[in-house]
């Protein structure tokens, strides 16, 4: 019995919990991407760097707050910085729409042009973030690191193996839940939210119904920028901030959005968890878990790892290609190819 519990503890600590947290982060990122795709109808390659930008603003503001002696007790001060960061990022997003995307929208340019534009915006953001805060790692986390540590867990349960629950993990899970519920309430219950779904569903009919396109576009950018900022800050609190990491997240985020079905918010969330769990499950070294669960005599050779963690991104990619080949509209039937 103890063996099973130990194995479960290991599995929870190294697979279930991190995958759930990572899945929440991906889900938030994928939501932003899928909203932009569903309403503005293009893949926004600048989304990763938008996350970096938002996180950067949050970090700068956090440093300022910390210098002023402001703190949030056991929670990270960065939480206070999030509203400011969201405001600034939304401002940037609206400017980019006004100066870059709107022109092509009016001209009814094909989707590829928007994609290439988003590459330009990506370059811009990349440069800005590195210029302002530098390309290296930045530390901004404070507050209590653990809600309970492995040692505390072991003491409490008497097991050999323990589970650690970090503050950043709890924050991510709670925030993601709150945001998702709020977003769904907005989309399903509010008049504006429904008008956005209508616009995404059938643009011409939406216009005929008197829905104001500019307003829909505005709200889309606001939501996307806000989601990107929050996702970026949560990720930064959890795994540290380095500008390049956010660019790399582009692949799993898009994989998540596509797996769930581009344009479908529910799909983005499901996709986020599917991608996250796959990545973690495939690259976890099962040796210790098997040690507890397997028969006494059997000694696992090596780490018992399907794929080395270096190939994390390969997992997202393979999932992506499989979905595109088998079911291009994704799990929840978003906009098809």
């Amino acid at each position, binding site marked *: 019995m103890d063996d099973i519990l130990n194995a479960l503890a290991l599995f929870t600590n190294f697979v279930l919990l991190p995958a759930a947290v990572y899945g929440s982060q991906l889900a938030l990122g994928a939501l932003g991407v899928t909203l932009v795709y569903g309403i503005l109808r293009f893949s926004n390659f600048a989304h990763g760097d938008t996350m970096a930008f938002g996180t950067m603003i949050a970090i700068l503001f956090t440093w300022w707050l910390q210098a002023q002696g402001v703190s949030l007790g056991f929670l990270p001060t960065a939480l206070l910085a999030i509203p400011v960061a969201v405001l600034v990022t939304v401002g940037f997003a609206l400017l980019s729409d006004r100066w870059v995307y709107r022109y092509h929208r009016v001209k009814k340019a094909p989707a590829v042009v928007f994609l290439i534009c988003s590459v330009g915006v990506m370059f811009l953001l990349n440069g800005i973030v590195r210029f302002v805060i530098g390309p290296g790692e930045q530390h901004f986390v404070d507050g209590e690191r653990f809600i309970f540590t492995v040692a505390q867990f072991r003491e409490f349960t008497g097991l050999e193996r323990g589970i650690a629950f970090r503050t950043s993990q709890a924050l991510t899970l709670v925030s993601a839940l709150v945001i998702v519920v709020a977003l769904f309430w907005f989309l399903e219950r509010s008049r504006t939210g*429904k008008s956005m*779904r209508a616009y995404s*569903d059938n643009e011409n*009919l939406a216009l*005929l*119904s008197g829905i104001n396109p500019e307003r829909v576009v505005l709200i889309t950018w606001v939501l996307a920028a806000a989601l990107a900022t929050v996702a970026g800050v949560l990720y930064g609190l959890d795994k540290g901030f380095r500008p390049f990491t956010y660019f790399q997240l582009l692949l799993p985020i898009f994989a998540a959005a596509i797996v769930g079905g581009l344009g479908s918010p529910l799909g983005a969330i499901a996709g986020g968890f599917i991608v996250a769990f796959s990545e973690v499950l495939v690259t976890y070294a099962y040796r210790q878990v098997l040690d507890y669960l397997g028969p006494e005599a059997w000694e696992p050779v090596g780490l018992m790892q399907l794929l080395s963690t270096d190939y994390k991104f390969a997992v997202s990619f393979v999932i992506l290609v499989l979905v595109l080949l088998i079911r291009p509209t994704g799990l929840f039937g978003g906009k098809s190819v």
Partner: protein
Amino acid sequence: MSFLIAEHMTGGYGGSDILHDCTIAVEQGQIAVIVGPNGAGKSTAMKAIFGLLNLRHGQVRFNGEDIGALSPQQRVLKGMGFVPQTHNVFTSMSVEENLEMGAFIRRDDIRHSLEQVYALFPVLKEKRRQPAGQLSGGQRQQVAVGRALMTQPKLLMLDEPTAGVSPIVMDELFDRIIEVARSGIAILMVEQNARQALNIADKGYVLVQGSNRYTDSGAALLANPEVRRTFLGG
């Protein structure tokens, strides 16, 4: 002066003209039907009245007002409802949400209108939580018409409402349209099923190559041997 009068319409989608000096008029509570062979410009005429394309010549007067300069959305606000031929529902949204979207421009309480639409199309009330995309063709048309009715229009324009629909459903649809007209709303309809449409029409316009060929009451057109020979199969 007619409630809606679009006279001497000449124009098209860009280069060449499709409509040549075409005139359509409808009265309140009246059902006017536009029929004609393929490519005659029936849908084009309706779209021109709604403002979906620019006219080189001619004017459109609605309820005494010249609305030529107004965009389609503005015309909706003036009381024109338009039901496109295809893609006329929000497939991913429920029936009730579709109707809500129809009433988007209205700021008042829409529950009364909702009940009216449900009274007109009882099957919609049954399926109101279902996504519109899951309904049959005929039911979808009902949603489409219901959506347009939610704007409380004074003129309802329908572009080939019975396209791709079975004959029984077509009859039912036409019955509903008559009911709507009886409530005082003017109806303008483009139809491919000329015979059945003219049957319920107060006024019929036969268009050929973008201009009026025959204009008379529905019954008269049905009785007209020329019309019968060329468009109604004798």
